[in-house]
């Protein structure tokens, strides 16, 4: 317990400096809001439901996007990984599409899809898809040949081997692809909300910046951090749950 507190001593120092500096007006309130105001804002916003609503909207978008990206990524990874022909034809396109900075497609999605929820989901899927797809593909390439042979000897058919050997073998790869996708998705969601949305933490943060409500802005940043942390831990837990044999 004490160890935990001691570990975070630099945070305690930094927070104290912050609070003292702002409370005694050594740092102007146009630079940093008082730390206790940030927490008050957080408390109030969660209490009256405003922050809670924005958080829920953002979380829904990210999780929705990740789920769709997972389904599509695994499907395409299996498709290209299992078929030599499609590997040759499809993979260059998929890899080539990564030459574009992933964020540069955002304007195009706005033109095509407007500012609604579909656009938000597509934006997130567009960044989360690739790491999941490529990891599934790589995982398939690295399936231990001797496991496949052992299963063939037992009398399993190729189709059964997909379920018995290949799917379990690629699960850890899918999970690590998902872990790469999470921070990318959150980042894209924030920007998509900044450039065009009526709700969500990204929108809250940028509006708060424009109206100089720094306490509220920091409250939003704190919630975004917590969301990033929560999602990462959730994927980690999902990994432990789906692949219990990995320690």
């Amino acid at each position, binding site marked *: 317990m004490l160890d935990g507190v001691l570990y975070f001593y630099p945070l305690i120092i930094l927070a104290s400096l912050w609070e003292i500096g702002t409370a005694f007006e050594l740092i102007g309130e146009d630079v940093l809001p008082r730390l206790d105001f940030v927490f008050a804002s957080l408390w109030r916003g969660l209490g009256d439901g405003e922050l809670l609503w924005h958080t829920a909207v953002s979380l829904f978008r990210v999780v929705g996007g990740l789920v769709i990206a997972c389904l599509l990524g695994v499907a395409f990874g299996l498709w290209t990984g299992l078929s030599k022909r499609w590997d040759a034809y499809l993979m260059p396109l998929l890899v080539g599409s990564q030459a574009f900075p992933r964020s540069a497609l955002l304007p195009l999605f706005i033109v095509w899809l407007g500012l609604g929820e579909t656009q938000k989901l597509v934006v997130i899927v567009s960044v989360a898809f690739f790491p999941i797809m490529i990891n599934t593909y790589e995982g398939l390439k690295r399936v*231990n040949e001797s*496991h496949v*042979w052992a299963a*063939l*000897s*037992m*009398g399993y058919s190729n189709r059964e081997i997909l379920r018995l050997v290949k799917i*379990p073998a690629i699960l850890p790869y899918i999970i690590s692809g998902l872990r790469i996708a999470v921070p990318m998705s959150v980042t894209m969601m924030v920007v998509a909300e900044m450039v065009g949305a009526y709700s969500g933490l990204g929108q809250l943060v940028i509006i708060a910046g424009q109206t100089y409500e720094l306490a509220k802005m920091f409250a939003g940043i704190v919630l975004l951090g917590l969301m990033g942390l929560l999602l990462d831990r959730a994927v980690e837990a999902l990994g432990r749950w789906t692949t219990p044999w990995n*320690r």
Partner: protein
Amino acid sequence: MATQGRLAVESVSKSYPVREGAVVALSDVTFDVAAGQFVVLIGPSGCGKSTLLHCIGGFVELTDGNIRLDDSAIRGPGSDRGIVFQREALFPWMTVEDNLRAALRPKGITGAEAEELIDTYLKAVGLGESRRLYPRELSGGMQQRAAIARTLIYQPSVLLLDEPLGALDAQTRELMKEWLVGIWLREQKTVVYVTHDLDEAVFLAQKVVVLSARPGRVKRIVDVNLRYPRDRRDPRYEEKREQLWKLIRDEVRFD
């Protein structure tokens, strides 16, 4: 005495296509294995021992020649031949007992019958207590014994073992050798066993097929007619070892 599991390897050649041309791994290899016989393939590293075992298993296609099991040519893998690899043979995502269960399912053996068999075979390899553990939680020797149990349980007539003791420490290897002899005497199966360890060959084999360096050819076939369990203090044991070492030494070169 076993009636099934007679193997005939007839002029087998195997080359792998690589970027420039081909690697000839095996060239015109011929030998017989009687039903229930314990045959050891020995030869320097890279001479094609594993390749030969994979050919018998039906996992890779022959470039030339024939392999017959009980007079019918081998086409692809089948549950009449079971294989154990040097390491990581078990499915790591299944517990030991689930690995054995998976081996029974294609045969349609499930339920109480399956559980009984699993019980029997796990006890036979001394793993009754560890059945609910994942392979990663077992020691190397336990993993190999579990892998052998998983292969024995679906009753192949031929057992293909590719350096099954190669990844184990010296003491465990000693114990496993004695244990293997016991299992083989009891199960009465044909065994084709790959190793580069001379002592394993003399301790286990009724017949040793010595392969030359790449491309692998049969250099000599040596019979070992000593009673099991074998006694290393027996002068004939040392003689056989010496004979094999002379055959192998010319093949193992630093280059």
